[in-house]
């Protein structure tokens, strides 16, 4: 337990020292939250008196979760593995589950911090209110976070070299950002793109978060969306376990 706490501290320290990670996980989503918030502001949406910015908050949170899971986790791991960091560590008594455990806990804390910052910006700057159940919101958020973390580790396992990690992660990230209904509603897309969008975890997580936060719906209504997110989580976890490489 002491070792695990030490690893969480180490990962947190390293995280705040990596400028790439800080940019993607904090500056990038905050910038989009502020930018889109300023552009659309109080602009109305056709459905039931909600404003665009109300829909924006859960979408940007999904994007933030992706930055942590895909950009920070996968590229960071592939890079450290490529440099032989884990190879050196394997000669010490440090256990591998402590290394992974430390990373997962650290990333989860980052995810909570991201959500908190974005919610604060949303409520303070744009008067967004979360109408749904906070506990359910937190649950959906956590599930989404773990889903993207698993996706990050799956990518790190499948990608061979540290060099190709960044471009591959970028592609996955941007595909999900543009086709996951984060900035554009999927309903304006042609049918074949909608079908593709419909298999992405980002789309369903975004739906679930919006339904809970903005529309105030309960578990009985979002479970279908969550099921797909859980499916992705399980699939990515399986891939990570099967193809995981320390060297």
């Amino acid at each position, binding site marked *: 337990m002491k*070792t695990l706490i*030490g690893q969480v501290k*180490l990962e947190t*320290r*390293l995280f705040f*020292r*990596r400028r790439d990670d800080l940019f993607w996980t904090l500056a990038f989503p905050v910038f989009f939250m502020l930018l889109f918030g300023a552009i659309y502001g109080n602009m109305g949406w056709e459905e039931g008196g909600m404003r665009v910015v109300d829909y924006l908050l859960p979408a940007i949170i999904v994007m933030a979760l992706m930055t942590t899971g895909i950009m920070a986790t996968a590229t960071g791991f592939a890079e*450290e593995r490529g*440099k*032989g*960091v884990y*190879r*050196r560590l*394997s*000669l*010490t*008594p*440090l256990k591998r589950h402590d290394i992974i455990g430390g990373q997962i806990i650290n990333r989860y804390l980052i995810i909570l911090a991201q959500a908190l910052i974005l919610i604060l910006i949303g409520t303070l700057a744009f008067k967004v209110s979360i109408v749904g159940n906070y506990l359910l919101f937190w649950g959906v958020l956590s599930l989404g976070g773990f889903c993207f973390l698993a996706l990050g580790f799956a990518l790190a396992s499948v990608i061979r070299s540290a060099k190709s990690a960044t471009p591959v992660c970028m592609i996955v990230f941007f595909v999900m950002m543009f086709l996951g209904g984060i900035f554009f509603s999927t309903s304006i897309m042609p049918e074949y793109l909608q079908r593709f969008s419909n298999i992405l975890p980002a789309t369903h997580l975004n739906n679930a978060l919006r339904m809970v936060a903005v529309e105030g719906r309960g578990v009985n209504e979002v479970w279908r969306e969550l099921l797909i997110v859980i499916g992705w989580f399980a699939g990515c976890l399986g891939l990570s376990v099967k193809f995981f490489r320390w060297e």
Partner: protein
Amino acid sequence: MSTVVEVKDLVKRYGDLTAVNGVSLSIDGGEIFGILGPNGAGKTTTVEMIEGLRKPDSGSIRVCGIDSARGAEKIKQLVGVQLQSTSIYERIKVEEAIELFGSYYHKSHSTSRVLDEVSLHDKADSFVETLSGGQKQRLALALAIVNDPQVLILDEPTTGLDPQARRNVWGIVLRLKEEGKTIILTTHYMEEAERLCDRVGIMDHGRIIALDATRRLIEEVTPESAIELTSPDEGAEEILGRITGVSKLGRDGDEFILHTREAWSVIKELTRLCDEKKLSIESVSMRKTTLEDVFLSLTGRKLRE
């Protein structure tokens, strides 16, 4: 001295290639044992099996009496390792890295003591990514000794370093030996093996082809020294030819080469002759046969092509 590391009939294959082909070693407590050989000889694979980084296909390894197949975790506590290219997190400070690695072991030295041992006190607050090659290598040594190991394994500790940095590392290694550590190191620098190692095993194509005390290994293969001197005197050849202990006298104009097994007594005789017979000698040089000569005579190849 008791045996601290015992390796028997170690074999490691990669596909068709047998990287290590039946290596047996017995390393005593407190000695520096060198594994010398060209690139691809199987040195690194051998030490990586001792470290526990690779599993041998067959053979056994005992470190401090513990069988590596059963007590790998116990062995980790007792061994310190410097890999050929050690890499740790880049955005971590030297001091933090030492503390971090220390925290992984049951017992560890204080960070300040480790910094002292490798003379990195003035870099304690620097990020790893800003260190020079020599400093990185010293940090790698620091991480290897942080747990006060009984056995230190250093894989090419000075490869790629400039002469000054190399000398620094040698100094640290010799100090660690004085502390009583058992040290195994691989190298392809003859000079390094001669300077540091009590015993040397010469490796080629996955086998140990010679193993003995460093000095004896050199003497066994080419026991003679060569004394080269220049003398303009007419009677030099006659005078030099009468020196006892000279097995062969070569001449090329003013230049003479004396082959001998008793270099020192020949040198003494030379200085006496200079005084008594007024023999004038310009530029004397003596060359000891080196491990390079040993390798050449064993394999017919130079160590570094």
